[in-house]
């Protein structure tokens, strides 16, 4: 990566650092009791295919080996707006959030190496819950409303290197620094004005470290296979009073296949496993899969995909399930120096006593200066 390119990369990162605190992915009500909702290291293109193209997409901070084919400095980012409907059976709620879950800068270095720097959401910890109840105080039932909120995420800052070892084999590795904070606030407001409202707030900080490696091979013409693994250490949680929790983080692994039978037809499928059960006593290991396709050239291709799997956190004896579909497209602008990607994703999550549906509109921007 040349000096000019590094400057551009720095400016890009600086521009987006203002929104880094909002670098959250898709949150879920199921994860309120756990560490958070795992983020998806997927750009808009990959997510529009259900995530199936993510292992092969250099604009997704997923597989480092996918960076091996990057020839120009590229900066990409995405924003999402989600409409989430919760159905608890007797109670419903409609939520709406906007996020900037991803930012990535990649470019070629010397001797065939390609580097990448960026962040994505590792664990989303944003929620606000309102509880109304009654408690006995001084011999009288007193009605109250609690508001418990958390705003923020654990962000995965990744430094990655990749290199094509042979014409058919690429290798990549990444160092993941897990940082971030959440602004948390709890309040209790009594209906009886004799009782003051209690408000407590603090900032919770997170800290962790991880590494990942991946291989990508082209065994046949038009066929590409990928393997990856990732291991993270512990997630250390701290407040102003010091360390409050230390949670093991999962080992993750996965495989994916990409098939391009014709120049304008691409198909992919992937499967991944994450051992989240090490993190908390009531967490689950998860297996997630996705299948997707992209049809068309660089201008307004059609992207489709479906995904399924489980969430690592949720009440009950079984992990909540997740099933989704996505559709999207994109366009190259400024003679290929820029790209805009659009996508819409629909998700259904189900667990004990809760059905959650999510519509997410995604917008991605990529610049190749």
């Amino acid at each position, binding site marked *: 990566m040349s000096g000019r390119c590094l400057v551009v990369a720095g400016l890009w990162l600086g521009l987006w650092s203002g929104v880094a605190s909002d670098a959250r992915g898709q949150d879920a009500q199921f994860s309120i009791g756990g560490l958070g909702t795992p983020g998806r290291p997927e750009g808009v293109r990959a997510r529009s295919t259900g995530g199936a193209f993510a292992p092969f997409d250099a604009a997704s901070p997923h597989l480092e080996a996918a960076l091996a084919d990057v020839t120009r400095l590229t900066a990409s980012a995405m924003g999402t707006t989600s409409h989430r409907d919760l159905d608890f059976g007797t109670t419903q709620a409609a939520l709406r959030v906007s996020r900037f879950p991803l930012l990535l800068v990649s470019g070629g270095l010397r001797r065939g190496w390609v580097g990448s720097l960026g962040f994505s959401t590792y664990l989303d910890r944003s929620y606000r819950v309102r509880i109304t109840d009654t408690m006995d105080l001084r011999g009288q039932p007193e009605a109250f409303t609690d508001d418990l909120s958390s705003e923020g995420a654990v962000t995965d800052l990744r430094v990655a290197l990749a290199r094509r070892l042979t014409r058919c084999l690429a290798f990549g590795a990444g160092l993941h620094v897990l940082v971030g904070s959440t602004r948390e606030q709890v309040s209790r407001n009594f209906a009886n004005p004799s009782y003051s409202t209690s408000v407590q707030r603090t900032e919770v900080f997170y800290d962790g470290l991880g590494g990942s490696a991946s291989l990508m091979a082209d065994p046949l013409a038009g066929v590409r296979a990928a393997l990856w693994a990732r291991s993270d250490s512990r997630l250390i949680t701290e*407040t102003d009073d010091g360390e409050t929790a230390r949670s093991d983080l999962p080992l993750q692994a996965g495989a994916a296949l990409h098939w391009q039978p014709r120049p304008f037809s691409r198909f992919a499928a992937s499967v991944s496993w994450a051992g989240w059960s090490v993190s908390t006593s009531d967490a689950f290991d998860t297996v997630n899969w996705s299948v997707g396709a992209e049809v068309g050239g660089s201008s307004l291709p059609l992207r489709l995909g479906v995904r399924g799997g489980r969430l690592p956190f949720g009440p009950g004896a079984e992990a909540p399930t997740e099933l989704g579909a996505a559709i999207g497209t994109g366009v190259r602008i400024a003679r290929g120096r820029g790209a805009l990607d659009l996508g819409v994703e629909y998700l259904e999550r189900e667990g004990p006593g809760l059905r959650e549906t999510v519509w997410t509109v995604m917008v991605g921007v990529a610049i190749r200066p």
Partner: protein
Amino acid sequence: MSRPGRRARVLGRLLLLAGAAACTEEITAPGVCPDYCPPGQITVRDTVLRAVLGRDSAFRGYVQAHDAAQLYATSLPGRESRPIFRTLPIPDGFRFGSDTTLRPIVGVDSLRLALILVRRDSTTNLTLRIHRLPLVLDSTTTLADLAADFAAPPLRTVNVDSLLAAPGRRDSVTRDSVAVEVGGAITILVGLDSAQAPYVVADSGRLAFGVTVAADSLANIALGSGETGSGPRVSWFLRIDSAGVDTIPPIDTVPPVSRVVNPIAEFDSFVFDPPAAALDSTLAVGGVPAARSILRADLPEFLRDSTQVLRATLVLVPTGPLLGTPADSFFVSAVGVETDIGAKSPLVSDSLRRGSTLVRPGALDTLRIEVTGLVQAWLADTAAPTALMLRQVPEGSLPEVRFQPSAHATLAPALHVTYVRRFPFGVP
């Protein structure tokens, strides 16, 4: 426009729509606990702190009878109180128009005495008796000093209830009248003739009166005092030697200013019996001269370090019932002090750092005063003196209440506190 251009335009519009949709956020979900609620709970505790209040003392002398906002006229078993007042001097003559000659007062036609009744009990035949008193009234005058004057026949007797029931609320014979003011106060106008209220040149027209009260029951009222601008007032209707011709202004028309004067009372107070009891180890509040009690709190560490106080109530146990009639009810206020220098501790002006509650005669109930704001201020400012003063509102009224002191083994003052413990942030 080329096809790619049209596509880009459509895409741009979609982006604008997406941007507009992204501008709003709503992430509040109903809490379905425990499955879909965050870990950790808001823990509220409620406890009565019995040993935190101590080093209490009572002091007397804050408001004297002549400083009081009300003048008490009471005739109850075991308590007698009578308002007394002396009017201001009036000029010994007047000038008319451009005439620079001082025309002397040559006599009095009549005098009208205005009394404002600011408080009364529900009773019948409420009667006021107006007595002439010597001019030598001051803050040391006692009921015993004036016993002979009050024993003399009154100058006038006015039945307030009869006046209220009379047509136009006016007695056509005596020309006494009453008017009910906004807020319920009653202005009583009592007519006196020149024999009852003579103009004495040597006294510059000063007059002194005393008022006694009688009723079928609950003879217990309060008149306004000069301290609040509603004190006794007299209107002189004077004879002036106007160029050799006496002038008597018609009483029912607007008189020339120079011939009618309305001096306020030069001095007003009330004399009563029995006098206030001496202070002892109990916490005295009220009475005349007014008593206050200071209480000092020693808040426990757990309250200071890791909690928010939601409600704090001062619990006081009276040593006995408040004596008097319903009209004697008053507020006991617990007020924070700016600095703790004992009896002269300046009280805070911040209304958040004070609380009060009504004390009713006859009740022996434990008194509870909300002092949430005061305790919160103590916790927020560790340098603030954790002391509070108990005082009567309005201060300077006759009834007095006493509470058990901190030295009492079982009925000492206590602080009933509802607080929330520190939330366990950062624990998944």
